[in-house]
């Protein structure tokens, strides 16, 4: 019987199989950041050892960094200490480190791919659940906890049970004004926030094939939000072209040889998946979430479900969610008030997202009631925004572009949405308090966010921006 793409990559990295199902897996690339590494580095010090393979480890400061006034000292002492500790830990262990003002600094899942460190067929881990992003390259990439970060530091290996496999096939053409983010939010709303648990998802189908690398990264990034361990997309010419020429990618003949290997990275025609789903791209509208988990989303022209037929703890959860959000069952989403708009995060903080947002708001003005945070995913993205003249477009419309970091996605820094305020956010989680205690998050793609930013309310971007779509 044939193997799935996931099986091929996983099996090629098994160092030892343990009784009872766990495998010891070798890790090709370990990304680290300041929040989940300190206790792991402390563990190494207590054992009197150093990082085993610093050449396979890359660190960037992202979760806790300020996005403005970076030339000044960080106000919060704990944040300052955490960043300082990260720098010294990396230096002590000879690990590459991109600090606050380093030209390569940024959100870890944006920095890795743009440097060409993420490549097809690799195993990649990081102490962050959105590590699934790198699966867009045909890598097996997943998030790990701090104890596992320590394991990888010590041995360049990790112990994991092998997940089940799921294939989600999306076919057909996405409507104008419907982005990859909308596509994946739709999928999560169909299979629920726990529908993927225990599985590694392969995204397939002609709709997926037609996506750019950045769009594929958005999709794989969100796979964790339906509970999956990770997401993966088979590499193809789009992938090879993206990786070619990047700073840390192999060069010349070595690159060509790698491409020949990478062409073998696909699921065999007779491979069996534990679970399969299929979706029709034409049915997908721009999406918006109304509740407090990423699966609670609908088409922007739709209504919040009535909750009819829900019983027991399902009903309790649904009611609690709507109460937190200040919404009523059956409410329409169009016209709902918005206070904050966030464009950024490892989900939608790349240059294509900024281009899309800029093209939409060009010549218009930010609504007066909106506070907007436009946060590039990395210094490189920031440089591209400048080089392409997007800064001027944003400025003319009344938008300010900030400095790179995770920012309002999880609001560890000062970019917090105040209690009771509504934010339309291109990030990945809308849990209670995610963007600040009492903050009310509605997840969306860059175009629904742009529509909210210029209208001050939830609107259908296909109407608002029809002249440019």
């Amino acid at each position, binding site marked *: 019987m044939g193997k799935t793409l996931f099986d091929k990559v996983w099996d090629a990295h098994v160092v030892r199989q343990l009784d009872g199902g766990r495998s010891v897996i*070798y890790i090709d690339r370990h990304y680290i950041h300041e929040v*989940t590494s300190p206790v792991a580095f*402390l563990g190494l010090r207590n*054992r009197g050892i150093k990082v085993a393979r610093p050449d396979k480890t890359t660190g960037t400061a992202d979760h806790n960094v300020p996005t403005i006034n970076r030339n000044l000292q960080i106000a919060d002492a704990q944040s300052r200490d955490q960043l300082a500790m990260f720098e010294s830990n990396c230096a002590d262990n000879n690990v590459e480190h991109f600090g606050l003002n380093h030209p390569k600094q940024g959100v870890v899942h944006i920095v890795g791919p743009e440097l060409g460190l993420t490549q097809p067929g690799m195993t990649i881990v990081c102490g962050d659940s959105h590590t699934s992003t790198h699966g867009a390259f045909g890598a097996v990439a997943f998030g790990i906890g701090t104890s596992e970060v320590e394991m990888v530091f010590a041995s360049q290996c990790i112990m994991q049970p092998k997940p089940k496999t799921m294939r989600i096939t999306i076919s057909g053409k996405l409507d104008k004004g419907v982005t990859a983010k909308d596509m994946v939010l739709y999928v999560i709303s169909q299979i629920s926030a726990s529908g993927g*648990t225990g599985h590694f998802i392969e995204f397939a189908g002609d709709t997926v094939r037609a996506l750019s690398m950045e769009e594929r990264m958005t999709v794989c990034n969100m796979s964790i939000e339906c509970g999956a361990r990770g997401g993966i997309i088979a590499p193809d010419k789009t992938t090879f072209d993206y990786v070619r020429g990047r700073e840390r990618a192999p060069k010349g003949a070595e690159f060509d040889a790698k491409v020949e290997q990478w062409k073998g990275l696909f699921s065999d025609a007779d491979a069996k998946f534990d679970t399969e789903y299929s979706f029709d791209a034409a049915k997908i509208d721009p999406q918006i979430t109304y509740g407090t988990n990423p699966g609670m989303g609908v088409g922007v022209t739709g209504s919040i479900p009535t909750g009819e037929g829900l019983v027991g703890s399902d009903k*309790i959860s649904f009611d609690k969610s709507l109460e937190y959000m200040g919404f009523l069952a059956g409410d329409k989403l169009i016209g709902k008030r918005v206070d904050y708009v966030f464009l950024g995060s490892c989900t939608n903080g790349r240059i294509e997202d900024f281009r899309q947002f800029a093209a939409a708001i060009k010549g218009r003005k930010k609504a007066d009631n909106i506070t907007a945070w436009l946060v590039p995913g990395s210094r490189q993205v920031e440089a591209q925004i400048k080089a392409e003249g997007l800064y001027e477009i944003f400025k003319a419309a009344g938008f300010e572009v900030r400095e790179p970091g995770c920012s309002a996605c999880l609001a560890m820094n000062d970019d917090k949405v105040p209690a009771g305020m509504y934010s339309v956010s291109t990030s990945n989680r809308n849990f209670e*308090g995610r963007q600040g205690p009492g903050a009310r998050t509605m997840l969306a793609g860059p175009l629904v966010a742009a529509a909210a930013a210029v209208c001050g309310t939830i609107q259908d971007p296909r109407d608002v921006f029809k002249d440019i779509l």
Partner: protein
Amino acid sequence: MYLKIYFKTMAKEKFVKLISGGVPVNIENIDTDQIIPARFLKAVERKGFGDNLFRDWRYDKNGAPIADFPMNQPKFKGEILFAAKNFGCGSSREHAAWAIYDYGFKVVVSSFFADIFKNNALNNGLLPIQVSENFLQKAFDVIEADASAKFEIDLVAQTITNVTSGISENFAIDGYKKECLINGYDDVDYLLSLKSEIDQYEKAKA
């Protein structure tokens, strides 16, 4: 047993049997942002996380305890946390497992756990027990009727028993992790013991 030779340096606490009461948090889809909000992830050491467990559900914005949250009700004493399905979803922060363990829970019982959280719990001596929806519902009922109701967990036999009703259920657990929990073994020591195999792998793949 091959594991015994290697685990001398960093032994952890053992878990074999437990008889305790439960704290019922009958809410579904509890994500790790609720378990430990992001603003508490700035710590560089593993200290004080128990104080901030479920912080925004336990305390209001003025720091006053919220009376009807089960952890604030003194009648619920116990080392077992009961939660509705899809517990621990969301962010991979291991701090969530630390917070639960540091507060004083040894076990979390739910009908469904998110994968990363489950792994983090197992790596920290916190036992995640997945039971049927039926068993979980009965457990919530029994605790509601009698806050001091006890549950018995036998890790060797892989059973959890509702002492009041006498009903037991078997639970699944990864064989390697079970060994580690029962014996207080450490994963890093095990991996370090595989050094020559790892070196061989690297040479073969280079």
